[in-house]
C-alpha cells in the first residue's frame, strides 16, 4: 500500500514538473527589435591639381603648392608678387563619399601684409560632373589634360574651353568628378607695398549633402 502511494506520488510529481518545465521552456516575456543605422558620408576630395601661370610671371615669381592629406585644402605660397600677377589653379575633385554632394564655390583665405587681399580678384569656372572612368571619350580631358595658359586659360581671367561651364551649387553623385579652374589675379593698382611680398593663399573645398 505504502509502495503504491510512493509510486503514485512520484509519478504525479514527475508529470507535474515535466509539464512545468515544458511550459517554462516556451514562456517568452518579450520580443525584440534589433536596429542598426549606418551613417553615410560626404567627401569631395581634390585628387589632382595644377598651378599654372604665364612664362613672364614664372621669371620673377615662384609658387610652391601643397595639398592637405585629406584633399580638402590647397596651400599656395607665392613669392615676389607684382601688379598684374596671376595664377590659374586647376582642381580635379571627386566625390569619394557615399552620398550625392553639392559642389559649392571654394573658400579663400590669405596670409600676408595687412589689407593686401583687397588687391586680389578671383574668377571660377566649374566643369562636370564627369564619370569616374577617364576613358578616351570622357569629356573631362577637354578641361584638364592639355590646358595651357594663353590658349584655354587666358590672362584676363576668361577661358576658352569648349566644355559647358556649370554653375555651383550642383549635385555630384558618388565617384563622379568635377574640374574647377580658379583665376587669382593681383590688380593693376596694387600698391608698391605689395611688391616683392610673399603671400600664402588657402583654397578650401566646400561640399554639402545634395539630397
Amino acid at each position, binding site marked *: 500500500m505504502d*509502495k503504491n502511494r*510512493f*509510486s503514485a506520488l*512520484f509519478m504525479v*510529481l*514527475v508529470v507535474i*514538473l*515535466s*509539464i*512545468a*518545465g*515544458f*511550459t*517554462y*521552456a*516556451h*514562456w*517568452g*516575456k*518579450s*520580443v*525584440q*527589435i*534589433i*536596429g*542598426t*543605422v*549606418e*551613417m*553615410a*558620408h*560626404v567627401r569631395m576630395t581634390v585628387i589632382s591639381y595644377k598651378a599654372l601661370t604665364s612664362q613672364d610671371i614664372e621669371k620673377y615669381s615662384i609658387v610652391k603648392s601643397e595639398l592637405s592629406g585629406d584633399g580638402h585644402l590647397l596651400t599656395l605660397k607665392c613669392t615676389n608678387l607684382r601688379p598684374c600677377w596671376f595664377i590659374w589653379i586647376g582642381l580635379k575633385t571627386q566625390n569619394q563619399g*557615399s*552620398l*550625392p554632394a553639392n559642389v559649392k564655390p571654394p573658400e579663400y583665405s590669405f596670409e600676408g601684409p595687412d589689407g593686401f587681399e583687397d588687391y586680389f580678384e578671383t574668377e571660377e569656372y566649374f566643369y562636370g560632373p564627369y564619370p569616374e572612368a577617364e576613358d578616351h571619350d570622357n569629356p573631362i580631358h577637354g578641361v584638364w589634360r592639355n590646358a595651357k595658359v594663353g590658349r584655354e586659360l587666358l590672362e584676363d581671367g576668361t577661358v576658352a574651353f569648349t566644355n559647358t561651364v556649370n554653375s555651383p551649387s550642383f549635385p555630384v553623385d558618388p565617384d563622379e568628378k568635377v574640374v574647377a579652374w580658379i583665376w587669382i589675379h593681383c590688380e593693376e593698382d596694387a600698391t608698391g607695398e605689395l611688391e616683392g611680398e610673399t603671400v600664402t593663399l588657402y583654397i578650401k573645398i566646400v561640399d554639402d*549633402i545634395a*539630397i
Partner: protein
Amino acid sequence: MKEKTIAFLTCIFIAMSIFGFTYAQWNDVIIVNTTMTFGTLNLGFVDPLTWVDNEDAKDVGLIDCHYEEYVQDVATGKWSYRKLVTELANAYPGYEGYSTFTLENVGTLPVKITDVVVSDFTNTLKWVEDATNPAKGVLVDTATDKAILNLELTPDPIEERLEPQPYTPTTLEVTLYLRVNQDAEHRYAYSFQVEIIYEEAT
C-alpha cells in the same frame, strides 16, 4: 525485492533530477511573474513585414528588415519569430525609415503588452522617452546629449491585448518609425534595441 529497491531508487533519482532542474528554471519565473499558469504565453512576429523610406527619386539611403529566431508554439503548433532586425544603411540627416510588422498571439493564453523598453547595448545612445508616450522618443548621444535618432511605435502597443485563437484580435500591426537627425555623425554605425514586454492578460 532487490530489483524493486533498485527500481524505486532509480525513480527517486530521476524525479529528484527533474525536480532540481525544473526548480532552477522555475525560480526566475516565480520571481518575475509571481504567477504560475499552465499553457503557453507566446507572442511573436509574423508576416506581413513591410518597409519603406522617405526617398522619392533618388535611392541613396537603404532600409532592410527581416525576422529572426523562428520558433514553434508547442501547444498551438504555430510558428513565429522572436526578433525583428531593422537595418538602415547609407543614412543621412533627414533620412526616415518605416518598418511595419505584425505581432501575433500564437500561444494559448491571452497576452497584454505591458511596456516598451528602448536601449543601446553599446551605451553610445540613451533613450529619452516622450513624457506621455513611452513608445515614442529620441535616442540621444550619451556623451553630448545631442539627438541622433527619433523612434516611435505607432500605434502605441502598450496595453494592447491579443487573444489566442479562436478569439479576436490575435494580431496587431505596428509601425516602427525611425528618423536620422542632423547631429548624427558621418560614417558612424549606431545600434539600438526595442524590447516589447508582455504578460498574461487577466
